Every structure is written in structure tokens, then in C-alpha cells.
């Protein structure tokens, strides 16, 4: 269904093309980094710290050096002077504190899994065998592990910093002049409104991309060539140059087909730097491919926050103020965008609602754990989770229907463009339309009836319904805004469109796909623009020598920013072709129109003379007879810097059944209607939504990175890190409404993260809704059977969330609370041991 259906002449945009790239991917015929074999190539194996925090007293490499096939063993001390420090591209405050981040630890390790030595050998097996022989003598140091205790500086993750707090970042609507004063409005609501205060745990996740990370470096040519399974070949090239002091022009980075990233490959990794160093030291090509265990342990993690929220509303349910206080776990180091990741959510807690005042404060804290960084949604899933949980809590507080309460507070479609309390301009949207469609597909009323019946029957299986009406900011990002946020780069994207003599087209894009299907979608864009066949468009990317300019793929930016650059470049091709076509047609350029791939004199009708883009391309190539002063090329480039973010939105509805005897949650129905603007390829959109839903639902129900009290990752394999498969999810019902974005010509808003951002609160809300009548008002994610069961069992015995012993649901003890106090004692902490503790 479309809210605004635009008349479209296009044949490709909106066409559910099967992806060009799938044949080679699903038949395994493609070339992943690990498949590369170069002459004389050496292999790396890492020696990693088993301790979360320790001094390195000595590293004895003698035995390893003598092992068969070993060429070199490299320690941190060996490269201390040349390895530089891994980059943090986003220092969020001027006084941000951060430790140096060495690729190989030199005298201290700060998390379990950190590299302390590297074996370079003739085969991967020999490297692994020899790595076992490296003898490291450690002296353990007290480790900062628990996030809240770390914030209180109980133990220091980096003693030299003197504190675990890296930075405190704040946005305040009164200060920014974009809204009122939160504290005033909250104080007023305490008198004659309603105040809801909650604290949530947004647990640590592991991106778990399908292809483990792999890097090959060839130092034998004039340039260093690095193949890496990365999302960001361009950023990687720049950062390698600045980190290692190599001339940028001497580095070429290639991202061949990459098997997923989800933000987990938006990084400049120690392993990439180490492989580069090893190749430079040995003068031979070197390869490093991580094992799955290493990937889970040492590739960056995501999320990991405590979130305290205070929401003030009028008695009639009108929301007034929102105050957010985040404690974000950085882990041991600041990676590329570690520090900024929670800030990406800063402007999204207010979401689609019309708050008068808003304040967001984030405290970034170091711990001795794997460092965190971008993971699908990066900051925005955390925001969406918190606000959508709060809206449900407010509804309960007021005895209101949760969807109806949201509707009362969201931006109405006629209010667009709408400037949010954070000062962002939401260009377009229609929350009413998406919601109406979702409610219809879901049979909301029918399920509510069944819920009532089950409650009345006292059925051991209870039904719950969860809502998430969300928006996100995508299309990262206007360079000016990134500058204001102190991010280390711009947010533009580049494209070239090259017309070949035969009329075929090469599109060079700076977006670096790693599973999204850019080759297909970009072909569709250009086929429509230039009126050429879909099959005649070739999309080239992922190699800094082929696509020298670009800022890569993350933040749902590719189509919105990179696709727009492609469209602009194609427009320039048409502009360049026009005078040549006019010359060929013996007409004035101004009289020509270009439709369906042909130039013709406007108004000449059916029989009029025309010339195709292909004919113009051939004539340009021959250059025998071009107008005076025209260069013989149609090739065009465009670098597009967006003027604004884009704001996809949608309504997600989830129904779950909760077995109250075991706490087991099973999904019953999932409906989502997303508005991602104009859809270029419905199949790709649906695929992105499906994958995103699986990941978002996984946060709600299944996944959690758990460390023990020694700082060892316990969920270190897929046996314990319970990543779901298709067998664990249900068939989703997905649909779209379309309100085109107004900030790019395509009208697209971005879809890569939507499913992941929206789904988590819908699921958690549904689980809680199923057992709310039993006295449960929160369950910590993931909602494991044990946590759900424990919540049911202890409900009513204590007012604090029974499964979140460290969280407080009311954190202003001397202020009147709006929640009815629970009947039981406040010390009832029996059976509160969460499975993940």
C-alpha cells in the first residue's frame, strides 16, 4: 500500500529484481578474502591474553621461533615504535580521556583476548602450533568489569587515566534553544501530572557476521595491497596511512565480497594493522583469518548500556519532558566510533513524540572487556528500546490503551516537516497510515480479545501484545552536522558513471557493499535514469584503486547518500550528452527532451527523429564529429553531501505466547509496516527488514555477551551465545507505506537498520504484556525462560524488577512516585539470580 502513490514512468525502480550478486554468493563461487592465495604467502596466528587486566612481565618467544615453519614471532615490544595507535575517529568531547590503543599490547593487557604476540609461519597450522609455545608471564591487575562499579571507579580499567569515565556528553533542549527545561517540567508533573521513572539494561551483544574477519597484505609491489573483509575500505586506507605513517598513495585497500558486517566490520582492527606490519617486516604476503572463537572474543561488541529515564506527562497522557541518563560501556579501548555510538541515539529518545523538553546525558565508561562500537542501529536501537518501553509504562500508569496513548502524542502527518525537540527536521512521514495498516494486518482487536479470554481462563499459556512505533535517523550524514559533533570525517558519498563505447554503463560507487545488494539497486537506478537495460549496468566498488573516493557503507546511508550521488552523476551524463545529441539531430539542445533512453525534439511526436544514449556514447567515443569545444567524454562524477538525515519510521506489532510454567516465550505473530520512503527494490527491502527483525528479536529473547567475574567471555561460542536461526523465528508479515523523503531525488530513507531498531521493544513489550496482570513490570533482556519464570514467581513480592537486581525502577526516593508501591517487602532478593549474571 502507498500513502502517496507517485506516477512513475520508471520500469526499474520498484521492480523486485533478484540480486545480481546472489548467484556467485550462494553457489560459493565468489572470492572471500580467506580464499586468496598469493605466491610465498605467510600465515599469522595470534597469541591472546587470557586475562582481563594484567601487566606483561615477559614474553618468551624462543621455543616458538624454533618451531617448524616459523618465520618471525612479533611481540608488542618489537613494534612499539612503529605500530602507532589504533584510531578513534570520534572524540565526543574536548576533554575526552582515552588510553593509547596499540595493535599488539606492549606492557599491559586491558581485556581478555587482546593480542600480545603474533606468530608468522609458512602455514596456518604451523603458526597455530607455534603460538601455543609462546610463553607470556603476566601479573594480574584488578579488573573493572561491572559497568556500574566501573563508573564508580571501584577498580580502574586504565590506572594511568585516574578514572574510568572517558567522557560525559550532554544535550539539553533548553540550552540548545530547541525546547524547554526538563527539570522544570518534571517538577511540575510531580505536582499535577504523572512522572514515570525506569532504569533499563541494554545488554552487550556480539555482531556475529557470517564471514569471520580476514586480511591479506601484499607488500611486494609499489603499493601495499590489503584485502580485508571490511565495510570501510576507504576509511581503512586513510587510517592505515595515518596510523602507520605510510603515504596514503602507497596503500591500496580491497574489500572483495564481504560476508556481512552489521557494523562489526566498521572498524580499523588490530589484526589489520598487525597483518600489515608482518607483511612489511617479512617482505612477503601475509594472511590472517580469525577463528569464530576469536571473532566472538575480539571483534568489537555492541550496545551495553544502563539507561535511566524520567518521563513527565500530563494526567491526560500528553507527554511533556524526557530526561535520559545513559551509562555506556566502552570496553577497554575506543575504536573507530566507540565513543560516538551511544551519541548516535542522543537525538532519538524523543522519537516520534512531541516532547516540550528533553535532556540526554551520556557517561562513557571504560571496563576491562572487549571494546564496543557500532552494531546495526548503533545508538538508535538503544534509544528506541528505552522510549518504547517507557510509553508502555506510561500507558499502564494511566490505565490507557498503549497504541492510543502513542497516537495522542506522535507528530501528525500534516505537521511535517517537523522540527523535533532536538532541533532535527523530520522531513516526511505518516505514522497514522503505517499504524492503521499494521493494526489491520495484525488483527489487533482479535488478539486483544484472545488475550482477555486467556487471562480470564487463567490459561497457563498467556498472550502478550507489544508495540513499537519508531523512527530513526539515517543517511549518515550531513558533513556539517558531523563536524558539529566533532566526528573525524565528512558524510558525503561519491559516484562516477562511465558511458562505454558500446552503450554499456559502468557505475563506480564509494559505497562498499557487504551483502546489501548495491550492485542490483544501483543498476536499477541507472537503468531508469539513462534508459539502458538493467543487465547493461555494471557496478564497481570496494577497491580504492577502482573506486578511489568514498566513505563506505554503514548507518543506512548507501542508497540515501551513495545512491543519490549515482543519480546525480547520471544526471550529469545526460547533461553532457545533450549538446552532442542535439548536434547529431541538428536541433537546438534546449529543444531536446530525454525520455526512455532517447533524445528527441520536444513535441516532435512519434515519427520525429531521435537518438539513443548508446548512439550518443558511440559518437562521443569516435569523436569524429562533435560540436565545437565539447570534450569527447560523457563520463561524469558526483560527490553528494546530504543536507539532512532521513527519517524512516514504522509500526511493529508482536504477539507472543508465554508459558507461565516454564517462562518459555514463543512468537505467535509479527507484523511490521515500515515507511522507508520510495522503494527501489522491494525484494531487497524485505530482505533487509527480515534480517533486521531477526537481530532485533534476538536482542529481546536470545543474545547476550556474558563475562564471568574474572572478565572471561563465557558466551564465547555459538553454544552459549545463542544466536537464533531461521528455525527459531516465525514468518514475518511485512508491508510498507511510502512517504518519499524530500532530501534526496530518489525519495528513499534507508532500510538497513530499521528492522533491528524497531523490533526489540515490540518483543519485550509483548512479553511483559503477557504477564503484566501477574504483577510483572520489567524483565531484563534477553528475556530468557528463567528470567521470565523468575519474574512471574517473584512478582508482587517486591517492587524492584526481580530480574534486574541492580536496577532501580524508582530512583527519586524522596519524591512522590506515581507507581503504586508493591505490597511486598523491598528486600526480597531471593531467586533473583539472572541467568546471565
Amino acid at each position, binding site marked *: 500500500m502507498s500513502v502517496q502513490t507517485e506516477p512513475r514512468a520508471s520500469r526499474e525502480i520498484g521492480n523486485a529484481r533478484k540480486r545480481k550478486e546472489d548467484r556467485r554468493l550462494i553457489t560459493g563461487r565468489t572470492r572471500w578474502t580467506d580464499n586468496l592465495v598469493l605466491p610465498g604467502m605467510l600465515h599469522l596466528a595470534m597469541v591472546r591474553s587470557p586475562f582481563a587486566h594484567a601487566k606483561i612481565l615477559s614474553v618468551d618467544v624462543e621455543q616458538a621461533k624454533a618451531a617448524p615453519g616459523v618465520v618471525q614471532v612479533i611481540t608488542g615490544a618489537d613494534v612499539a615504535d612503529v605500530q602507532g595507535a589504533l584510531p578513534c575517529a570520534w572524540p565526543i568531547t574536548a576533554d575526552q580521556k582515552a588510553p593509547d590503543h596499540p595493535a599488539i599490547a606492549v606492557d599491559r593487557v586491558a581485556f581478555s583476548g587482546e593480542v600480545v604476540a603474533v606468530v608468522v609461519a609458512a602455514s596456518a*597450522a604451523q603458526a*597455530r602450533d607455534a603460538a601455543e609455545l609462546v610463553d607470556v608471564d603476566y601479573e594480574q591487575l584488578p579488573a573493572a568489569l561491572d559497568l556500574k562499579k566501573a563508573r564508580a571507579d571501584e577498580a580502574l580499567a586504565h590506572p594511568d587515566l585516574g578514572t574510568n569515565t572517558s567522557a560525559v556528553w550532554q544535550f539539553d533542549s533548553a540550552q540548545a534553544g530547541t525546547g524547554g527545561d526538563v527539570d522544570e517540567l518534571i517538577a511540575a508533573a510531580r505536582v499535577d501530572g504523572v512522572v514515570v521513572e525506569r532504569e533499563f539494561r541494554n545488554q552487550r551483544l556480539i555482531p556475529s557476521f557470517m564471514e569471520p574477519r580476514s586480511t591479506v597484505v601484499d607488500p611486494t609491489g609499489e603499493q601495499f595491497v590489503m584485502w580485508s573483509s571490511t565495510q570501510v575500505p576507504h576509511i581503512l586506507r586513510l587510517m592505515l596511512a595515518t596510523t602507520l605513517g605510510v603515504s596514503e598513495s602507497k596503500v591500496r585497500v580491497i574489500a572483495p565480497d564481504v560476508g556481512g558486517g552489521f557494523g562489526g566490520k566498521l572498524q580499523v582492527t588490530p589484526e589489520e594493522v598487525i597483518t600489515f606490519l608482518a607483511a612489511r617486516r617479512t617482505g612477503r604476503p601475509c594472511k590472517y583469518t580469525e*577463528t569464530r*572463537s576469536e571473532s566472538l572474543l575480539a571483534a568489537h561488541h555492541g550496545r551495553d548500556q544502563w539507561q535511566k529515564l524520567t518521563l513527565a506527562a500530563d494526567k491526560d497522557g500528553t507527554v511533556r519532558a524526557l530526561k535520559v541518563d545513559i551509562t555506556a560501556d566502552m570496553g577497554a579501548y575506543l575504536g573507530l566510533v566507540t565513543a560516538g555510538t551511544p551519541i548516535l541515539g542522543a537525538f532519538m529518545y524523543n522519537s516520534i513524540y512531541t516532547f516540550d523538553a528533553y535532556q540526554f546525558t551520556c557517561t562513557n565508561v571504560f571496563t576491562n572487556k572487549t571494546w564496543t562500537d557500532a552494531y546495526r542501529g548503533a545508538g538508535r536501537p538503544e534509544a528506541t528500546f528505552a522510549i518504547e518501553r517507557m510509553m508502555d509504562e506510561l500507558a499502564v500508569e494511566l490505565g490507557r490503551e498503549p497504541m492510543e496513548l502513542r497516537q495522542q502524542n506522535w507528530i501528525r502527518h500534516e505537521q511535517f516537516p517537523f522540527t523535533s525537540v532536538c532541533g532535527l527536521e523530520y522531513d516526511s512521514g505518516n505514522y497514522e497510515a503505517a499504524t492503521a495498516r499494521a493494526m489491520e494486518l495484525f488483527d489487533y482487536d482479535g488478539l486483544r480479545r484472545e488475550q482477555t479470554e486467556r487471562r480470564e481462563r487463567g490459561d497457563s499459556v498467556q498472550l502478550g501484545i507489544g508495540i513499537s512505533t519508531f523512527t530513526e535517523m539515517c543517511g549518515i550524514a550531513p558533513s556539517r552536522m558531523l563536524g558539529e559533533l566533532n566526528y573525524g570525517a565528512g558524510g558525503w558519498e561519491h559516484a562516477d558513471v562511465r558511458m562505454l563505447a558500446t552503450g554499456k554503463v559502468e557505475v563506480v560507487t564509494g559505497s562498499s557493499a557487504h551483502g546489501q545488494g548495491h550492485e542490483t539497486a544501483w543498476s536499477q537506478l541507472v537503468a531508469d535514469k539513462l534508459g539502458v537495460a538493467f543487465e547493461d549496468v555494471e557496478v564497481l566498488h570496494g577497491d580504492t584503486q577502482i573506486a578511489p573516493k568514498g566513505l563506505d557503507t554503514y548507518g543506512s546511508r548507501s542508497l540515501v547518500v551513495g545512491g543519490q550521488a549515482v543519480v546525480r552523476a547520471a544526471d550529469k551524463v545526460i547533461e553532457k550528452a545533450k549538446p552532442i545529441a542535439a548536434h547529431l539531430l541538428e536541433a537546438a539542445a534546449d529543444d531536446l527532451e530525454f525520455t526512455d533512453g532517447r533524445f528527441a525534439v520536444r513535441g516532435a511526436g512519434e515519427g520525429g527523429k531521435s537518438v539513443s544514449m548508446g548512439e550518443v556514447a558511440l559518437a562521443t567515443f569516435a569523436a569524429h564529429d562533435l560540436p565545437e569545444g565539447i570534450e569527447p567524454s560523457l563520463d561524469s562524477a558526483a560527490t553528494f553531501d546530504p543536507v539532512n538525515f532521513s527519517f524512516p519510521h514504522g509500526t511493529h506489532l508482536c504477539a507472543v505466547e508465554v508459558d507461565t510454567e516454564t517462562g518459555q516465550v514463543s512468537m505467535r505473530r509479527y507484523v511490521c509496516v515500515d515507511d522507508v520512503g520510495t522503494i527501489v527494490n522491494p525484494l531487497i527491502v524485505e530482505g533487509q527488514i527480515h534480517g533486521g527483525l531477526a537481530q532485533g528479536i534476538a536482542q529481546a529473547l*536470545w543474545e547476550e555477551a556474558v563475562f564471568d567475574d574474572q572478565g572471561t567471555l563465557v*558466551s564465547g561460542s555459538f553454544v552459549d551465545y*545463542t544466536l537464533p536461526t531461521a*528455525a527459531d523465528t516465525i514468518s514475518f508479515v511485512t508491508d510498507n507505506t511510502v512517504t518519499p523523503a524530500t532530501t534526496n531525488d530518489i525519495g528513499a530513507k534507508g532500510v538497513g537498520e530499521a528492522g533491528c531498531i524497531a523490533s526489540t521493544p515490540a518483543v519485550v513489550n509483548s512479553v511483559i504484556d503477557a504477564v503484566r496482570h501477574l504483577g510483572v513490570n520489567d524483565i531484563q533482556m534477553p528475556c530468557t525462560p528463567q528470567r521470565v519464570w*523468575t519474574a512471574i514467581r517473584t512478582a508482587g513480592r517486591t517492587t524492584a524488577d526481580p530480574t534486574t537486581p541492580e536496577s532501580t525502577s524508582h530512583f527519586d526516593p524522596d519524591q512522590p512516585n506515581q507507581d503504586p508501591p508493591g505490597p511486598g517487602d523491598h528486600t526480597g532478593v531471593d531467586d533473583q539470580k539472572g*541467568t546471565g549474571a
Partner: protein
Amino acid sequence: MIPASFDYVAPATLDEALAALQRHGDGAKIIAGGQSLLPILRMRLNAPEILVDLGKVSELRGVFDDGPGLVIGAMTRYDELLSDPLAGAHAKLLVDAVATVADPQIRHRGTVGGALAHADPAGDVGAPALALDAQFVVVGPRGQRVVDGADFFVDHFTTAVGDDEILAAIRIPKHTGWGTRYEKFVRVVHQWSIVGVAAAVRVEGDTIAEAKIGLTNMGSTPVRARSAEQALAGVPIEEGAVAAAVASVAEGTNPPSDLQGDADYRRHLAQVLTRRAVLAAAGA
């Protein structure tokens, strides 16, 4: 991950396999389907000098009728068992449980004997075997011996099979016509049991004449729930009565506490799942 290097032999007969074990002593390790052993080697939790592959020893493979019972060769693969008519008719409980193991690829390689010899308390094969009164046929340099279930499982990953011995087969008395159910509780489908309950029930009219129950992951070995079995004998097939009879099924068990659930929760689950398994097995 890459295991430490090892030698490999694939004998064609049981005698040759035993001889290989003798020859290499401690350094030798049997490999059956490799579905537990290979991950262990790859994570370098063990580094045997030589693997003795039983894959070519055809006498260890297949399901046979020996009159009152079935003989299931140790090297019978899961997927072979799943489609075996004898097993389906007389040892359905084992088939039910094996159907829940991992995924089709793993069931194509994993073997009944490998699973039992591996003796992972979270594995799904031990409890139904124990419940069905399986006897374990062990051969070694001193000949063949037959071990009862109670004596076979010794501890986590430890059985009565000696280093120089091979589990050749299990013998299961026929449970023809018994109702069966394996209740496996997991968070995601490809997981080992958080708790599993294997129940076989012989029904007479409206009552449970006889019940046999094995518990997965409720201790360091599979556990036989004898007291619940006794309490169930003669009980009407009715939810309340069955619930009462199995109320103390977890008493005295010593389940683990780990990421998937702590011991008390597992005891609670065992009780709920036993009630459900028994009722389902009884056709309720």
C-alpha cells in the same frame, strides 16, 4: 581452528581397532562421527597422537532383532536410527530423542555409540537409553562384557569404557506398544538440552500401568527417575494425578547452574516437563 597434528588409522575390523588401541595406549583416541571429538580437537582441549576411526568397521553398524530385544551397533548413525523400522517399533523413545539432536548435517554423521561414549550430561541419547533399560556391550583385550546403564555412566564425560576398550553396541529390551515422549527444553533449536525428559509409558485402559523416565542434564550423568516411575504405576491418566506423582522427580538431583539456567530452575523444569512428557506418552 586447527587441531594439533595427529596420526590416523581406519581399521576394517573390530579386532584391528582393538589392536590399534593396544598399540598406541594412552595416545590413541577413537573417532566415530567426530561431532563431539573434532570440536574438542579444534579448540585444542585434547591432542591425541593418533585417531582410530571406526567408520570402516561395518560389524558395529546397524539395528538387529535378537528376540526379546534390539541390538543397536555403536556406529549406527542418528539418521539411520531415525528411519529404522525396528527402532521405530520397539525403541521409539530413543528415536524420539535422537530426532531432537542438533541438525540434519550433524545427525548424518553423529553415532549412537559416539554419543553414549562421549557421555555429555546435556546429550540427548543417554536418558532414553537409560530409561529403556539399555545394556552396554563393551569389548576389549579381555573380551566382551555387558554393563548396565547404572554402571555405564560414571561422571561428566566419563563411562565404564576403558581406554583400551570399545563400546560395540547397546541392547535394548523391546518396548513394543509403549507410548513415548522426549521433552527437550531449549532456548534456540540447535541447542543441547537445558533439561530433557524421556518418558515411556505402558497404558492399561485409563491408567498408567508402568512408566520409565530418564532425565537429561539433571546431574553429572543421565538420571533414571525411579521414584517417580514407582509413583506413576497405577495412576489414572489425568493431569492432577500425574502431576502429584511426579512432583518430587527432581529431588536429589544435582543439575548444573550455567548461562542457560540455574539448578533450582532446572529442578522446576524437570518437574513440569516430566508431567508433560508422561501425559503425552500416555496419549492424554
